[in-house]
């Protein structure tokens, strides 16, 4: 064990020694410098090991051999060891990163850096409150000087503002300390806490506490007293910003954590309120921010707010404080490593505005690291932030603090908005110039190291949280990691590997599931396998494509096997993020992917809120099955959780993301999104219904609402589909509409209704997968998505034409193909349920579907060909093959619906009394009957007869080209111009005009604009004037006084 006293000794000693040793040259100085930092790191790592592996007793060191209050004491326990390890690793890595900068600025920079590190270490270790003040000052002075070291106007200005704020904070701190000392007679923190000095109501002591915490709140950069911090983050060298944002902020936070027991009840609340307000407002203001370092500054400040809020809540709600240690640690270390990493990357890229970050695209390693850190900040699994946020929100729910839940979740969403916009620009922005970032190995090394630490920590925290079924929940991540090893090999090998791991995963899940879960995981995994096969049609695939695909499919499959809420939510998030990262690969999908991510995250956060409400009724509930005990809160919980699912199925109101995302994603990916991903939402809705039934909101049954939502989605999406010029967009709207039918089926909460939903789930997978793949083949050959730019392709691509024809027949529900089964079940169920009006609307929608079906096939395959497409070849076999597998399934289930319907009926039987009976192959409902087999035979028979008849009658028929026979003696000069495809349904559009106003889009646009406007109004308070910032600090004092004096 290393004695903690050696840390200040070594730091100070070296700080004095270095100027003396300067004559031996820069190398010697650097070696000594790094040796010192290395010593710190080694010492703290040893402590970390001792406390966590060997359970050593807490180390306490007393100066001059006295006990407190006469001496100063340092303490290193498990918490301190963690902090010290993080801080010293950061210092070492940060110094390494900053090496050229330090070399340029000279010897004093290294001395300052050592002092800075010492200050942070001291802040963590000391148990003496005045000593704390001293270390705080050491840290601050060192950082002022480090900031101003490069003598640029910006950094000097920022440093000056920082110093004014810092001086004010230190005056308050000292004032508080001396008053507390007078009251308690000790400077030792433990002594003060033990004496219960702050429990006293005397104004003097309360005033002392006020000063103390005011000062630390300022140091924690709370709104509105944080303008100076933003300037510092923006102006300082990113390497220094990393040290301040992660290191010194972290150390100060720990200091606050140490003395927080001194605070009273009203301070807990004040911390929670200020913290969450800061979190929300910083993220809100950041929406308008385009400057990368300042953007990160807002994010840092916001994260500090989050930490303070978590601390406040932890004390405020009094229960389960151990749990809060976990939460604080998770949130803290998550921010710590991710933010440092991001600042370092900002320093490497050297692009000020987020629009210029598209330069990052040329450097996959940096791009990967950026994405990783951003995901960590957003609290994506498996990063520590995810576990922390989950635990925090659950705790808040248990303790009935829903205003906190609302603020924190809203803030998180805002944070996602600007971070993902930035990432989107890096990934898919327009490239401006050719100056590429040229990272040094050193820089990449430290950044990569932090990424690794982030991941490891996340895994560690996750291991602590995921108590049951650990392997099932993390399986998707492992599979993705395995596939990552295959990057760089040929597409065939990668697909092969993906297939193998997915199959393996399927076998792993097989014994775990039965009934509905089995059915859905069959679609997710089986469908995934088929779609993976289809990806082969493109000879080249960008890096990360297959790991993400496998991650998406397997996390969806895990959703069906999840027993716990956490496991479900984790995999829901995994699915969301992996699909986001897949969508953004499309050439123009930046905005679409951004919208998708925002809506999905918004939904996921609502789900989180829903689970937290459940905690109120059933504290400690971990299982999904606990949803059954929601009782009077059922309506709220159902509404909140269903948001996530409604976003995924793109129900009306939450559908804004879908047309763009489907259209702009890569062509085969769109097939997966529509055919498979949307079913995850359906699975969620079914799960909710299984556990919660149909809860009431006041006296309104929520399944009626859901039913209408599904109906209107089906109607409006279909209506929009017919006016699209872009084939994929048309199919996208069609998907939204079709999934609307499934939602209706689920909402009916009856045997037939669910059968309809389940049947249509599979069927929609079959025909929509088929259609999207076929269209992908067409786009592959023609290079356009606009239908009016094609025509007459039936002659060039007959196999694709056949696919599309089968697809639209199945889609439109025309007998005898499978689509009709869904329609039949749906209408029987609707009429049985008494939802007559809904049935009418659904019927209207399904007739409208004919319009777009016809438009799709006519514009592309029929009519007059375009001259430049006369030599187009048939789509590649590799994409036709999966289509014909789908077609085979369609025919099998068309001929023998019983093969599917009977098992489905058995799956639904545990939940509802069956109302579907069988007479041989005839399905008999309470209203009607249907024999798909006879129907199929009948149609084939008649068709064959008529066909033979015509064959005989048209023996001498001659094949001609279009316009060989002409109408009204006119033969157009350029026949391709007569292809009737553009604005195909204009008269219909005219007729339907009143229904076509994009009200919902306008609504969401308004929400977005008003939020951003709110941000830009609020940010006016940061007017850049150091004096105004001082005033804002006094304003914070007044606010805090109002918050704390009331009680």
């Amino acid at each position: 064990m290393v004695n903690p006293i050696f840390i200040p000794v070594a730091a100070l000693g070296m700080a004095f020694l270095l100027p003396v040793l300067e004559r031996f040259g820069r190398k010697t100085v650097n070696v000594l410098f790094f040796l010192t930092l290395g010593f710190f790191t080694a010492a703290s790592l040893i402590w970390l090991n001792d406390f966590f592996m060997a359970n050593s007793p807490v180390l306490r060191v007393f100066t001059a051999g006295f006990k407190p209050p006469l001496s100063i004491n340092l303490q290193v326990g498990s918490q301190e060891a963690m902090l010290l390890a993080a801080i010293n690793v950061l210092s070492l890595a940060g110094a390494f990163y900053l090496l050229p900068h330090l070399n340029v600025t000279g010897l004093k920079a290294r001395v300052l850096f050592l002092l800075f590190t010492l200050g942070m270490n001291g802040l963590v270790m000391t148990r003496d409150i005045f000593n704390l003040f001293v270390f705080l000052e050491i840290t601050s002075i060192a950082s002022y000087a480090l900031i101003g070291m490069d003598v640029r106007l910006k950094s000097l200005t920022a440093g000056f503002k920082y110093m004014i704020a810092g001086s004010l904070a230190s005056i308050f701190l000292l004032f508080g300390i001396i008053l507390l000392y007078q009251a308690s007679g000790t400077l030792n923190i433990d002594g003060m806490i033990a004496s219960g000095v702050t429990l006293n109501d005397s104004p003097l002591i309360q005033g002392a506490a006020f000063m103390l915490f005011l000062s630390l709140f300022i140091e924690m950069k709370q709104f509105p007293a944080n303008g100076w911090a933003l300037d510092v983050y923006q102006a300082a060298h990113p390497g220094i910003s990393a040290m301040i944002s992660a290191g010194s902020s972290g150390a100060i936070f720990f200091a606050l954590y140490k003395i927080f027991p001194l605070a009273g009840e009203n301070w807990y609340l004040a911390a929670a309120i200020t913290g969450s307000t800061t979190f929300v407002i910083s993220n809100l203001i950041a929406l308008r921010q385009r400057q990368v370092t300042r953007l990160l500054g807002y994010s840092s400040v916001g994260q500090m707010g989050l930490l303070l809020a978590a601390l406040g809540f932890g004390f405020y709600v009094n229960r389960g404080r151990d749990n809060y240690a976990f939460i604080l640690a998770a949130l803290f270390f998550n921010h710590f490593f991710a933010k440092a990493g991001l600042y370092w990357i900002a320093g490497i890229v050297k692009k000020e505005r987020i629009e210029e970050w598209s330069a990052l695209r040329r450097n996959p390693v940096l791009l990967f690291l950026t994405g990783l850190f951003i995901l960590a900040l957003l609290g994506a699994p498996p990063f520590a932030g995810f576990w922390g946020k989950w635990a925090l929100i659950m705790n808040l729910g248990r303790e009935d603090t829903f205003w906190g839940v609302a603020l924190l979740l809203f803030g998180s969403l805002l944070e996602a908005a600007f971070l993902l916009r930035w990432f989107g620009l890096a990934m898919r922005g327009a490239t401006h110039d050719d100056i590429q970032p040229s990272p040094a190995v050193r820089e990449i090394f430290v950044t990569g190291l932090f990424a690794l630490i982030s991941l490891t920590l996340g895994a560690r925290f996750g291991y602590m949280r995921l108590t049951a079924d650990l392997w099932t929940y993390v399986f998707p991540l492992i599979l993705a990691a395995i596939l990552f090893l295959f990057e760089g090999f040929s597409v065939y090998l990668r697909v092969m590997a993906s297939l193998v791991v997915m199959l393996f995963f399927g076998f792993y899940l097989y014994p775990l599931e039965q009934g509905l879960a089995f059915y859905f995981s069959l679609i997710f995994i089986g469908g995934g396998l088929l779609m993976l096969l289809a990806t082969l049609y493109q000879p080249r695939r960008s890096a990360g494509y297959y790991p993400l695909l496998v991650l998406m499919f397997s996390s969806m499959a895990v959703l069906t096997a999840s027993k716990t809420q956490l496991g479900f939510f984790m995999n829901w998030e995994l699915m969301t993020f992996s699909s986001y990262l897949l969508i953004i690969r499309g050439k123009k999908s930046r905005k679409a992917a951004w919208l998708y991510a925002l809506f999905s995250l918004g939904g996921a956060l609502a789900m989180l809120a829903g689970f937290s409400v459940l905690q109120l009724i059933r504290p400690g509930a971990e299982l999904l099955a606990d949803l059954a005990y929601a009782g009077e809160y059922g309506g709220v919980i159902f509404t909140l959780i269903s948001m996530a699912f409604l976003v995924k199925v793109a129900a009306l109101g939450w559908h804004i993301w879908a047309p763009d995302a489907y259209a702009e994603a890569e062509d085969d990916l769109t097939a997966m999104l529509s055919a498979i991903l949307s079913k995850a939402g359906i699975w969620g809705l079914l799960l909710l219904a299984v556990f919660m039934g149909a809860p009431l909101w006041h006296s309104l049954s929520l399944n009626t609402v859901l039913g209408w939502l599904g109906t209107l989605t089906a109607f409006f999406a279909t209506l929009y589909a017919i006016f699209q010029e872009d084939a994929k967009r048309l199919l996208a709207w069609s998907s939204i509409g079709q999934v609307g039918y499934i939602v209706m089926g689920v909402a009916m909460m009856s045997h037939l209704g669910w059968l309809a939903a389940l049947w249509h789930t599979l069927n929609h997978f079959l025909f929509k997968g088929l259609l999207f793949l076929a269209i992908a083949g067409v786009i592959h050959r023609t290079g356009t998505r606009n239908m009016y730019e094609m025509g007459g392709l039936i002659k060039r691509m007959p196999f694709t034409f056949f696919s599309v024809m089968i697809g639209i027949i199945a889609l439109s529900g025309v007998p005898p193909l499978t689509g009709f089964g869904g329609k039949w079940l749906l209408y029987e169920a609707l009429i049985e349920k008494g939802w007559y009006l809904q049935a009418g609307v659904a019927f209207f929608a399904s007739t409208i579907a004919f319009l777009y079906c016809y438009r799709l096939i006519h514009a592309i395959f029929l009519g007059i060909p375009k001259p430049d497409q006369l030599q187009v070849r048939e789509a590649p076999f590799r994409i036709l093959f999966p289509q014909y597998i789908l077609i085979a399934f369609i025919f099998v289930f068309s001929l023998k619906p019983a093969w599917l319907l009977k098992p489905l009926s058995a799956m639904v039987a545990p939940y509802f009394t069956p109302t579907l009976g069988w007479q041989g192959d005839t399905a008999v409902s309470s209203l009607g009957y249907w024999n798909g087999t006879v129907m199929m035979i009948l149609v084939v028979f008649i068709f064959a007869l008529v066909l033979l008849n015509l064959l005989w009658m048209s023996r001498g028929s001659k094949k001609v080209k279009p316009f060989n026979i002409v109408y009204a003696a006119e033969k157009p000069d350029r026949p391709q111009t007569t292809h009737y495809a553009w604005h195909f349904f204009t008269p219909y559009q005219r007729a339907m005009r009143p229904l076509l106003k994009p009200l919902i889009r306008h609504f969401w646009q308004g929400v977005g604009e008003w939020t951003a406007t709110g941000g830009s109004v609020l940010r006016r308070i940061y007017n850049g004037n150091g004096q105004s910032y001082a005033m804002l600090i006094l304003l914070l004092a007044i606010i805090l006084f109002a918050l704390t004096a009331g009680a």
Partner: protein
Amino acid sequence: MKLVMVLGAALMLIGFWGLITRRNMIKMILSLAIAETGLQLIMIAVGYINGGTAPILDSAVDKLSAVQQVVDPVPQALVLTAIVIGVAVNALMLTFIIRLYQKKHSLNISDYKDMKW
């Protein structure tokens, strides 16, 4: 001692007032220094015992009753430290001002608003 305390508090308020009203950066720093001085006065006043003596154990103090007789030494030690730190910070701030003046030839804080929002 009440008087010293009130005086200290008054100085602090004057300092704060100066900080938020003076636009000249040097005056702002002086205001901060005034506030710090006020605080230091308060600190000393806190530890003072009426009629007490200096906290040095010599013949003037009875060793057994020293605690009642001598002034509390801790605040004095703290004040010393605080003064040192205050001086350091003020000096650093003045350096910054010199550098800033070299860049922009202005001492007015409102002239340094390049970064905002």
